[in-house]
């Protein structure tokens, strides 16, 4: 099985990442699949990062952590967070097949980001579910 998304869906994904995350100060927001493919990426106009490497590492990291959590006896696992000196990384599950990857600096609070990420995930599920039902 392969994943194909059309222009309308990709535009909607881009718009929701931009309006909900980038426009409030997030540096980079990326939707990726759990195999490490980049679906859509949006940044604040500054091209800082190698997104393909980030996607491969993010997918692997998330999968590894999910496996560890299962071994520890937990059923649910939904996010990873790294607090850096300048840059922070937030990686969250969207569905079984998709992840949301966000880089933001210390001008933004984690609480605000979590609220916005929750909204984006809801929007993304709506857009991606339409695809699987077609």
């Amino acid at each position: 099985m392969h994943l194909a998304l059309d222009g309308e869906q990709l535009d909607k994904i881009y718009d929701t990442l931009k309006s909900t995350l980038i426009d409030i100060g997030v540096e980079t927001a990326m939707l990726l699949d759990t195999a490490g493919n980049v679906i859509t990426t949006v940044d604040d106009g500054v091209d800082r990062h190698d997104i393909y490497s980030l996607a491969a590492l993010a997918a692997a990291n998330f999968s590894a952590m999910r496996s560890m959590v299962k071994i520890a006896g937990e059923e649910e696992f939904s996010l990873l967070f790294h607090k850096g000196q300048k840059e922070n990384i937030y990686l969250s599950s969207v569905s079984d097949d998709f992840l949301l990857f966000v880089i933001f600096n210390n001008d933004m609070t984690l609480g605000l980001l979590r609220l916005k990420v929750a909204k984006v995930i809801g929007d993304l599920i709506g857009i991606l579910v339409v695809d699987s039902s077609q």
Partner: protein
Amino acid sequence: MAFINLKDKLIQAKIVYYGPGKCGKTTNLEYIYNKCRTQINSKMVTIKTQGDRTLFFDFFPFDIGKIEGYDVKIQLYTVPGQVKYNSTRRLVLKGVDGIVFVADSAENRRNANVASLNNLQENLTLYKKNIFEIPLVLQYNKRDLAKQGIPVLNVATLEKDLNKDLRVPSFEASAVEGDNVIMTLKKTISVTMASLEKELK
């Protein structure tokens, strides 16, 4: 699971180099990375142990140009070959579209090759993929060992051990010298893209 971006006409597919420990998977990728820099707009990611063995994977994206109007980006990965890292091998296999199985031609690695191929078959089953259906190419690596007087398995033996039932394309190669490394990759891309095209029709 390849991703097809219908808006930008872009396909991303995943090819994984699999094989027993120290068979030359990372050496294959290093050779490709150094020879094909113009097609790689990224650094090679490696997650290694302190002893320089692959701990999780090596990775870089590889642009192969246009196929039927689509830009195709191949994500190349290796897995850790050591037996104890099976859980990480499984994670890297997720969403795989094509596989290079790198066998070690050294005579004393005969059993390790067979065990690794069996392990690949088991791990693919977890993702409901069939080793007889997935695009697969065999590479008989380290043919150069014979020049150093190290006993190597002859190709007929390797074919009998590994390819008797699979009947997939196979190449003799030397990753350290670069022999047939690019040919192996080209053939794998070719069978992977042919399979994708067939599935999409």
